[in-house]
């Protein structure tokens, strides 16, 4: 992806984040101009930057939002919560588009459609304001550009068009062209399209046509609207918008010029009969002899077949020549050309404008031409500057800077004047305290160039909307000098991929250095060199230390504050509580707590679920809270703390809490617990049941005080991120759910065990204890081996059997001890019978890939220092195999 686009995406994401924060602050301080200005600027910046790329739908939405905020800033519009909703939705959409851009380098195919929809909504907020204040909308961006949707002008008959043109005061006047395509089912909404169309004020023309040929009479449904309407009107945009308020998405308006109605139609006939006329006409135009030209047109019309294109062009010539606003030379020329060639030249050809059109220079010659043109334009601008009023304190600055510009422009504008001459003029101007010496100088130059009129330049009035930053820049890479070292940069933004590469390299290094102790051992045992062995060990010590520090350092780089995830929650809480009609206050604590980037990202989804649950099912509606004597506003608290090498996130609410009795009964009904358990189970244990799969199905929601949805899913997500989840709840008082997650997922500590001659790793966090139990302490209960440890019944399983390995100790002797690894699989405790325990190691776990990925029973693999591969067990999957 090109770096500029990437930069834009990163920058815009930050600005969007800023903006949504600002919106939330605004709700509490609606009149805080500082927040408003910051908000406006963030949106404005996104708009400005997005213009560099070919992403019009995105730009348009941001532009519309900017317009709304501008009006809010001016104090002409108060933001209602509904408006904020629309604005936030728009920002969300922009965010989604940014994701698309990052993934695909283009917007989604439906972007246009979505963009139009949002724009309409956003503009809707403004149009009301404009109407209330009786203000004209001046921004032309609010009107559709001409051309794309006005393909129906040719449907208006020549007579009708000529009538409109004749009645117009001036050929440069504009009309609104309205296209109204009613919804097919519009009659059922009480719309009456025809009536509405007839209400259009100052109607010049009105047309109806079917969208497709009428269907067969048997299939024809008189209740569907199959027609569309066109109209031309002199009314203002506001009047039209107001008229079509209820169907605005079905209506398009565009500004057209009266001149757009002037075009000949008909079959192009032989040019020959018109040759003489064209000759005369050209002569007459040069002499500006309009009355003779009109006579010539009349003569030509008498001999021309009325249906011919040429005749049509002649008739138009007559209309233009007779027009009260006086003859329009360029139009007359165009029409004469149409008579001559059978083709009407496109648009209004105005020669002065032609000169200033900036084409894309393809070759050196054109480049020079462009430069000359621009240099002249700069000169013209300076000419304008010298004529503007100037505050005294800026006078000298203006004079000197213009002088400097003149000196620099000279070599480019092919003018033989020396810089000394300009310096002298500047001195003179300073003495006289007047710009006139310079102004006279520029006037002379420009008149010698044959363009005295300072005029607005299309060069800058309409920057061509196109993406200059596409492949072009990539095709010709530019060698850039590295930017100078700046002291201001305190924070570097680094692409995560680079950090991942770094992390991978570090883990390779960790594995590689682990081979040194083995090497030392061999040096001693195989090569009998104690000296070397000792040196190797010393070296290893040093390298090991550096490695560990490096590892820590890289992990530090990956640490981000949980606020990354937390900051989206105020919005979520706001939206949800509004939707559910509850009053909720969100309190966030410890958002500066840091954890590994991936951990933080994995937190987002479960937290969203949990917050939803809290608000949806935990917090009671205001009236219920009042009846209970609780504060009307419910409280949801989100807290993050560090505990050793874990980060703990707590979500608590002061809502209904969970009734363990209901959970118990449900679990029993679902067959998750048996009758015996139902009687014994503590409230504490009963609560944990809500994480059980099967209990959490949607149908539960209503009667298990809510909390059913997705708890199982939440638990799975948290566990996949290497964490655990627990719940405490008091009926009527509220609920606390805590997630604890490892600070970093990069390094895992595993305990190595041996089974059947193979070594496996077990994640240390699931190991409860390692015990050796005399074989005769192992009892068969319900045909399953179990052992009683400290009054707990621990079911056992022989790991060798599960992994289908031949254990060395097939013949178990009575006196023998069994090595048992007691693990917690998250749901229950389990004893794994293994052959041997080894030490624990720090490893970097790599997920299994390719064919091996199918073996879910392994969480991943790693390399040991001596080059062996260590497979790490995934206990949760293992349990499923029992």
């Amino acid at each position: 992806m090109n770096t500029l686009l990437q930069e834009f995406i990163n920058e815009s994401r930050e600005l969007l984040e800023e903006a949504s924060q600002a919106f939330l602050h605004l709700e509490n301080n609606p009149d805080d101009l500082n927040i408003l200005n910051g908000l406006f600027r963030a949106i404005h910046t996104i708009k400005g930057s997005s213009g560099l790329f070919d992403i019009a739908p995105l730009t348009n939405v941001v532009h519309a939002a900017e317009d709304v905020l501008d009006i809010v800033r001016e104090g002409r519009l108060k933001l209602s919560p509904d408006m904020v909703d629309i604005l936030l939705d728009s920002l969300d959409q922009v965010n989604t588009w940014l994701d698309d851009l990052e993934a695909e380098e283009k917007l989604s195919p439906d972007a246009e459609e979505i963009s139009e929809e949002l724009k309409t909504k956003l503009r809707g907020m403004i149009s009301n304001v404009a109407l209330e204040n009786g203000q004209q909308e001046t921004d032309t961006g609010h009107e559709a550009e001409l051309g794309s949707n006005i393909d129906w002008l040719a449907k208006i008959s020549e007579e009708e068009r000529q009538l409109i043109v004749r009645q117009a005061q001036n050929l440069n006047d504009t009309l609104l062209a309205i296209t109204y395509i009613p919804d097919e089912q519009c009659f059922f909404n009480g719309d009456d399209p025809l009536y509405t169309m007839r209400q259009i004020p100052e109607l010049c023309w009105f047309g109806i046509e079917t969208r497709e040929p009428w269907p067969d009479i048997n299939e024809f449904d008189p209740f569907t609207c199959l027609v569309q309407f066109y109209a031309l009107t002199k009314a203002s945009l506001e009047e039209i918008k107001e008229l079509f308020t209820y169907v605005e998405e079905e209506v398009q308006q565009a500004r057209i010029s009266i001149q757009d109605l002037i075009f000949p139609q008909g079959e192009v006939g032989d040019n020959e009969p018109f040759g003489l006329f064209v000759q005369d006409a050209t002569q007459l135009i040069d002499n500006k002899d309009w009355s003779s030209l009109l006579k010539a047109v009349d003569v030509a019309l008498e001999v021309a077949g009325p249906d011919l294109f040429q005749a049509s062009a002649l008739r138009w010539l007559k209309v233009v020549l007779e027009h009260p606003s006086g003859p329009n030379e360029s139009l007359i020329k165009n029409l004469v050309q149409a008579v001559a060639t059978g083709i009407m030249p496109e648009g209004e050809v105005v020669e002065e404008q032609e000169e200033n059109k900036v084409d894309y220079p393809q070759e050196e010659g054109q480049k020079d031409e462009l430069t000359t043109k621009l240099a002249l334009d700069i000169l013209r601008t300076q000419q304008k500057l010298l004529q503007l009023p100037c505050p005294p304190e800026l006078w000298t600055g203006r004079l000197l800077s213009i002088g400097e510009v003149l000196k620099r422009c000279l070599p480019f504008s092919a003018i033989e004047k020396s810089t000394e001459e300009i310096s002298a003029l500047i001195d003179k101007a300073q003495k006289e305290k007047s710009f006139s010496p310079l102004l006279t100088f520029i006037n002379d130059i420009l008149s010698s160039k044959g363009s005295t009129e300072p005029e607005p330049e299309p060069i800058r009035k309409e920057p061509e909307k196109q993406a200059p930053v596409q492949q072009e820049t990539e095709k010709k890479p530019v060698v850039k000098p590295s930017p100078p070292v700046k002291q201001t940069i305190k924070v570097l933004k680094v692409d995560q991929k680079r950090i991942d590469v770094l992390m991978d390299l570090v883990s390779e290094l960790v594995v590689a250095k682990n081979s040194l102790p083995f090497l030392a051992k061999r040096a001693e045992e195989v090569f009998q060199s104690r000296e070397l062995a000792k040196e190797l060990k010393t070296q290893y010590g040093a390298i090991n230390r550096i490695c560990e520090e490096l590892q820590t350092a890289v992990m530090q780089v990956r640490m981000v504050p949980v606020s990354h995830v937390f900051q989206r929650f105020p919005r979520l809480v706001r939206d949800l509580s509004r939707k559910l009609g509850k009053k909720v206050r969100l309190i966030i604590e410890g958002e500066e707590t840091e954890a590994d980037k991936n951990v933080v990202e994995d937190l987002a989804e479960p937290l969203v679920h949990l917050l939803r649950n809290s608000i949806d099912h935990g917090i009671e509606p205001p009236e219920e809270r009042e009846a209970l004597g609780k504060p009307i506003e419910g409280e949801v608290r989100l807290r993050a703390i560090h505990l050793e090498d874990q980060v703990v996130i707590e979500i608590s609410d002061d809502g209904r809490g969970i009734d363990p009795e209901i959970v118990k009964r449900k679990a029993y009904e679902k067959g998750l617990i048996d009758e015996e358990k139902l009687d014994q189970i503590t409230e504490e244990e009963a609560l944990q049941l809500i994480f059980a799969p099967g209990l959490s199905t949607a149908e539960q929601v209503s009667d298990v005080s809510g909390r059913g949805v997705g708890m199982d899913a939440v638990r799975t997500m948290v566990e996949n991120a290497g964490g655990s989840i627990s719940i405490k709840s008091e009926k009527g008082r509220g609920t606390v759910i805590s997630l604890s997650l490892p600070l970093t997922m990069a390094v895992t500590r595993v305990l190595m065990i041996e089974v059947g001659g193979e070594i496996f790793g077990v994640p240390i966090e699931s190991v409860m204890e390692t015990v050796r139990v005399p074989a005769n302490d192992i009892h068969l209960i319900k045909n399953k081996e179990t052992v009683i440890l400290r009054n707990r019944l621990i079911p056992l399983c022989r790991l060798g059997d599960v992994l289908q390995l031949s254990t060395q100790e097939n013949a178990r002797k009575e006196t023998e001890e069994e090595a048992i690894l007691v693990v917690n699989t998250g749901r229950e405790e389990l004893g794994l019978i293994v052959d041997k325990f080894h030490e624990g190691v720090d490893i970097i776990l790599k997920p299994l890939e390719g064919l091996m990925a199918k073996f879910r029973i392994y969480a991943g693999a790693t390399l040991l220092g001596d080059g062996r591969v260590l497979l790490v067990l995934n206990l949760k999957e293992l349990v499923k195999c029992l």
Partner: protein
Amino acid sequence: MKRVLIVDDAVTVRMYHRQQVEEIGLKAEEAANGVEALEKMMRDNFDLLLVDVNMPKMDGYRFLKEVRQNPDLMSIPAIMISTEAGEQDEAQAYEAGANYYLVKPVQPEVLQSIVNILVGGTR
């Protein structure tokens, strides 16, 4: 080597303009707002300023007025590059001290030509 100072609060826009400016063999420096730009101008000499309108701390108009009143800086040509194409916006830019006015996004060729002219480059 001629030096151009790019003053804009949008990183993306600065980067884009920097690319254009460096491509024609000039040195580009960046500033995120008027204050930062003035600080840089105290330390280094610049031949041309490209100035955005909307910026935090000190906007483009204010910045240009500061430049035009400072005896050491007042003669440096300045181009104002804005998102607005309105005449009013253009007039305001000239009033503050801009010598030329462009509307974002500027075609690279146009920007490069103008920059080349205004730093006093060669044909």
